[in-house]
């Protein structure tokens, strides 16, 4: 087996590598083409990507439970959470605990609601979470009226915008989170159950796995992460505005699929989601450098998602076909011709 074949086999099992390669290539190209591109701008990209990663990780948990599960309410959760944080913290570090508590509570509540709809009432996730998102959007409108002024607690601001020797604090948070997630997925029982439920729900049930609990916890994780992200994002931009979470809807899904998590469920890659988030932000940055309008940026991102899904779909098909194949090629002993064996 030559090096390329070995790599392609390895890459098939470590799909995150594609987004990592994408990041590397695009960054190199940008560095060469524009001389103003530097390590410093990379740290800016890391900062933006960190916010996306947090939401993306949550989305990844939901997608991994399979059967088309998806969380479309993340955008509204982010926005509402940013407003709730503003209203509760009021720019005081003293209120920070209450604010964080409120954000977590909001995430838990929305996650529980999504789980109730999807697991309890068997409503397809795509509709249930879309509806939840709309309900939250209304709540956001109401809280928008209650806002008196924008003020961010200094500590939160440090978390969201600060740097330690050039490295954004937020990026450290995201990377630690990704590492923890990767550990959970790979080395804990919960990670195994999540993967099992996503791959074969019937088999999981027969293996005495409580599918519903696993799926519900994925939705709750997604909402809580989105909510915490809203809190930090609000601190980062120094306020809150309607629709501020909106870009994260498509981008979080894009980060998940681009990172090599199977959209059909059962296989997740936290590292992939991190790299894919960076790649997506890089793509957006590239388009800004080129001078494309925001609308065109959405178009490109949409195309990237479609392209990746088309590619992933093909890969799954070819993999299925490979499984259906007859024997193991390694032990195959080809006959020269189709020899007819006659009875003696």
């Amino acid at each position, binding site marked *: 087996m030559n090096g390329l074949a070995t790599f392609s086999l390895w890459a098939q099992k470590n799909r995150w590598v594609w987004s990592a390669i994408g990041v590397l290539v695009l960054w190199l190209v940008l560095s060469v083409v524009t001389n103003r591109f530097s390590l410093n701008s990379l740290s800016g990209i890391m900062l933006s990507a960190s916010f996306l990663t947090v939401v993306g990780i949550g989305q990844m948990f939901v997608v991994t439970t399979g059967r088309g599960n998806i969380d479309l309410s993340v955008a509204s959760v982010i926005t509402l959470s940013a407003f709730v944080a503003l209203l509760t913290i009021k720019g005081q570090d003293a209120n920070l605990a209450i604010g964080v508590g409120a954000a977590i509570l909001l995430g838990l509540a929305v996650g529980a609601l999504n789980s109730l709809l999807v697991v309890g009432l068997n409503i397809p996730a795509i509709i249930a979470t879309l509806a939840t998102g709309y309900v939250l959007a209304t709540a956001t409108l109401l809280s928008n009226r209650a806002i008196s002024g924008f003020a961010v607690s200094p500590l939160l601001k440090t978390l969201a915008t600060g740097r330690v020797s050039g490295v954004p604090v937020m990026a450290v948070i995201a990377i630690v989170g990704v590492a923890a997630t990767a550990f959970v997925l790979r080395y804990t029982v919960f990670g195994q159950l999540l993967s099992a439920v996503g791959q074969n729900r019937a088999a999981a049930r027969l293996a*005495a796995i409580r599918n519903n609990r696993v799926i519900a916890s994925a939705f709750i994780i997604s909402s809580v992460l989105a909510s915490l992200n809203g809190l930090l994002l609000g601190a980062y931009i120094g306020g809150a505005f309607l629709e501020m979470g909106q870009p994260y809807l498509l981008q979080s899904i894009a980060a998940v699929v681009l990172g090599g998590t199977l959209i059909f469920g059962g296989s997740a890659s936290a590292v992939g989601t991190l790299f894919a988030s960076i790649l997506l932000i890089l793509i957006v940055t590239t388009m800004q450098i080129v001078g494309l309008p925001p609308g065109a940026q959405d178009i490109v991102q949409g195309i990237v998602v479609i392209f990746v899904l088309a590619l992933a779909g093909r890969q799954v098909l070819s993999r299925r076909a490979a499984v259906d*194949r007859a024997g193991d090629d390694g032990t195959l002993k080809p006959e020269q011709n*189709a020899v007819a064996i*006659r009875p003696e």
Partner: protein
Amino acid sequence: MSPAHDVILKLEDVSKVYAGTVAVKQANFEVRKGAVNVLVGENGAGKSTLMKIIAGVEQPTAGRILLEGEAVSFSSSGDAVARGIGMVFQELNLFGNMTVAENIFATREITNRLGKIDRKAQERRAGEFLDRLEAGIRPDMLVEDLRIGQQQLVEIAKAVSLDAKILIMDEPTSALSAAEVEILFKVIADLKARGVAIVYISHRLEELIRIGDYITVLRDGRITGQEEMKNVDTQWIVRQMIGSDAKDFAKADGHQPGEEIFRAEEICLPRVTGGLAVDHVSLSLRAGEILGIYGLMGAGRSELFDCIMGRHGHASGRIFIAGKLVKERDTTRRIRRGLALIPEDRQREGLVSILSVASNLTLASLSRFVRLFHIRGAAERQAVVRMVRELAIKVADPAQEVSSLSGGNQQKVVIGKALLTGPKVLLMDEPSRGIDVGAKADVFRTMRKLSRDGLGILFATSDLDEVMALSDRIAVMSNGRLTGMFDRAEATEAAIVAASALGHGPGHLAPVHLAPVHGEQR
């Protein structure tokens, strides 16, 4: 019954009622320690339901379960596992993206104090079970990279690793090669020696007689016979199952096949991983002829059929119907040219389970009943009634949902659907898979009748008796190739088995090994 083995589990007057239908009626069933307790019955007789009750997947509507003399009730399969009852399910219940070891230890992962899974330990323990199966499966292999037969062995290893006191096996051999069956039987003997009670369900009667110690026969949810295996023979089992001595196979009626109706030349289907799944297969079929294609799981039979039906765009080769080259490459137009396929997987590819029997029957031929924009109800109904009568489909009302029928009758609906397209050539992929003896005989009679009417029939099977009894000619496939072609008169079991093992790994399928399985013919 002899008290040679102690009863470990006892069902007393257990009944199970599903919305209106009684699946199990007052069953009294005893499972004995250190013995193979065989359970047979037609499809829909209630075997699987009974087993699911024991395994805790279903709860009985009435009756008691006594485990070692103590009344128990299981609310989930987890409860049953906790009490030492394991089950190998008929359908594969594995997670493809996980390794063999991860599958074996799913839900009972070995973890350290921090909750971190100890993969090394899992793989070591899994290796111990796999070694006993001698199938060359490594614990770190991904399940989706295994052949179906190997996957089934993993399923078995998973159940064995539970250290169960009672192990239920629901058709464990359906996907195994003859050599793998031998291994399984060795494992079963080993478990028996350790005092495990095995409940064994299978449709393969020779198999049951060979390894069973006690036999229980179910019919229509009732237990109709319970005996020690040494006191019974095949005839007895069949009698208990269907209430009378049924001939297994329809006899040949001696009609002569006509002109060549179908010919395939150099059919090839590449594999994604390189090599060919169907390797230059050429064969011809005459009108009124039944050509049996024998081969082990994965020999390429189904793939050949798929190629002929135009289900693979990247397949190559030529096919001819009545001497004319078929240029159409898609399934729809090939059906119009007179090809029809009875797929192996009835549930997934043969039927739309939420539609009625009638709708399923006319699904492939609706255009024949259409005038302008609407379906002529009368013509459709007439065709449905004709098919139900001709194929003797047991259904009270064709408007009934097809999923309410038994396996054999569902299969007849699939056949009826194919026949309504007016085919010249019928491809049947494992037509008797998962259906009971009575229904099998019915399906075989139907095949005979159709061939008498001039239809050319290609049927694929991995059942040696079946291919010997039904075919006018027998083709053997192995590893994608045609490795043998026999006339009925000259075919011997030994030659067919030898041809079917060509091109497999060394020592994996030595014919010597196979002899006992099929050697004890009645």
